[in-house]
């Protein structure tokens, strides 16, 4: 009977809630409940750890733990509640970094207590390395997503340099384990080395690939937590950590697949180089000129068409134009135009991000059409309005085998009768490749900031 109130039993329940929670997160109807269940399990495990601890603990330590948890909860809660939905992905990255840092700090403290016990030292050093990489990498990813670091920075031969550096870290760690050292100096060299590697690892990767990187670092942190579980013989850390490590890895691959990229390509390639060499030929294939149009022309077109499909992309999120587009959609709807949004699975900054953004502005669920459902409808559509999207409508994915995005599922915007594309400039999209859709005879380009352009359209249409 006593077992029911033991820590091991609480950990068992918590582990089950994690599995159940993750499973439920995978289905739209149960997702929210799943998250709450996992949160409840976590709370149970945390309080169990504190109150069921066997051993003498001075009040000071209890007080400190209490203060730390309260402080962390208040700050975490405030950040999570205040940050606008467009900034969600970088927030995930930020919190992921915190977890990584926590794992690294645990290793830094525990190192001296386990000198001589090879396997414990192995888990400690592993936790320090993985946690530190996850921390510094996540911080760079965070900076990239919020725009403070906006260009991929590539040192010459960065691939070889990075790999040599990683190899050096691993060899050094191996030496530390093998030599049974208790040198704090070595430990801190390793710690700062891993931090530096995390930066070097993420900094050459372009902003569009950040979701994949965050997902990968997410599973790293899971692994770091699991190593802590080994160290302390702690089942809940082990189950939670391994679960996230494995689920995170699969999720990383799923994301790569949705973007038609290989993980290898994300980490070592970057769209940049692969195309420069390959797409030379493609550039010359694109002939014709682009046609510019004005807001008033587009307004007339939209006002008198019957079916309109909006294709929102990253540019819409950057311009914070999701409220404006919703207003435009309602206005056209009231004028009898059938309006829909076609959502590419990877539209926005992360897979599913666009759905979250539009849902926030109260766009009706029925108006959001998934790619497979909407693609057959394009040929019966009068006007397609592409806002800040590029690669997801690039026909090269269908008909140019030399293109790096060849084979990626796209929205068949080119089948519509008229195509209006809003972009800030002719700059190519993330993939860094030309888009022949811009040169299509049916296409008109409407240059300008998405939000301003949409607001102009709204006032034009209102005036009609």
């Amino acid at each position, binding site marked *: 009977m006593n077992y029911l109130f033991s820590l091991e039993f609480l950990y068992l329940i918590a582990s089950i809630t994690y599995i159940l929670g993750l499973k439920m997160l995978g289905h*739209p109807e149960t997702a929210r409940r799943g998250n709450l269940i996992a*949160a409840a399990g976590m709370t149970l495990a945390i309080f169990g750890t504190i109150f069921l601890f066997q051993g003498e603990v001075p009040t000071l330590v209890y007080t400190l733990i209490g203060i730390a948890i309260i402080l962390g909860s208040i700050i975490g809660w405030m950040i999570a509640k205040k940050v606008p939905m467009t900034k969600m992905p970088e927030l995930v990255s930020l919190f992921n970094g915190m977890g990584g840092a926590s794992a690294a700090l645990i290793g830094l403290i525990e190192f001296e207590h386990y000198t001589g016990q090879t396997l414990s030292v192995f888990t400690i050093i592993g936790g320090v390395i993985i946690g530190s990489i996850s921390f510094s990498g996540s911080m760079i990813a965070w900076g990239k997503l919020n725009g403070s670091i906006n260009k991929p920075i590539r040192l010459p031969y960065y691939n070889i340099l990075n790999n040599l550096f990683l190899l050096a870290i691993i060899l050094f760690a191996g030496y530390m384990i093998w030599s049974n050292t208790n040198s704090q100096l070595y430990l801190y060299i390793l710690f700062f080395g891993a931090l530096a590697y995390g930066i070097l690892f993420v900094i050459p990767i372009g902003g569009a690939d950040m979701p994949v990187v965050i997902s990968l670092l997410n599973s790293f942190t899971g692994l770091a937590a699991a190593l802590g579980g080994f160290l302390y013989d702690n089942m809940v850390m082990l189950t939670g950590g391994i679960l996230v490590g494995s689920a995170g890895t699969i999720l990383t691959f799923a994301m790569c697949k949705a973007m038609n990229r290989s993980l290898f390509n994300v980490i070592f390639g970057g769209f940049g180089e692969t195309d420069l060499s390959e797409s030379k030929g493609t550039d010359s294939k694109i002939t014709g000129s682009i046609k510019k149009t004005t807001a008033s022309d587009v307004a007339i077109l939209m006002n008198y068409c019957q079916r309109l499909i909006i294709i929102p992309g990253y540019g819409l999120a950057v311009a914070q134009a999701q409220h404006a587009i919703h207003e435009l959609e309602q206005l056209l709807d009231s004028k009898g135009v059938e309006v829909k949004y076609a959502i590419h699975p990877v539209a926005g900054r992360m897979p599913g991000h666009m759905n979250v953004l539009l849902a926030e502005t109260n766009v009706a669920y029925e108006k959001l059409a998934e790619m497979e459902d909407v693609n057959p409808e394009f040929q019966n559509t009068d006007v397609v309005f592409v806002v800040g999207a590029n690669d997801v409508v690039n026909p090269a994915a269908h008909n140019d085998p030399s293109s790096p995005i060849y084979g990626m599922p796209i929205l068949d915007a080119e089948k519509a009768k008229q195509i209006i594309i809003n972009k800030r400039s002719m700059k190519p999209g993330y993939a860094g490749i030309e888009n022949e859709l811009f040169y299509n005879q049916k296409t008109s380009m409407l240059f300008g900031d998405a939000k301003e352009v949409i607001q102009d359209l709204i006032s034009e249409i209102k005036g009609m």
Partner: protein
Amino acid sequence: MNELIDFISTNLDMVYVVILMIFVGIEVIGNVPAVLHTPLMSGANAIHGVVIIGAILVMLGADPENKLALSLGFVAVILGTLNVVGGFVVTDRMLEMFKKKK
């Protein structure tokens, strides 16, 4: 090598847990629609905040005279809490939006 075999034989249950959990993780994520990738990643992110338990254990076991260990542990607990609380709250916020439109 001997040490590794020793470790496996004394911690056989942990080895089982690791292997089974890897498969549970793979199984649980299979066939999730792309729409839910972001919330799922965020939820998983919150779950690895379980590392906070390690941070708490560090503090509970620390020598109260060791000020460095206590302060590092203190920071580790704060960071771990941020990961857990922030992670779950953000995920809930995302999913709340999904619910509204239904």
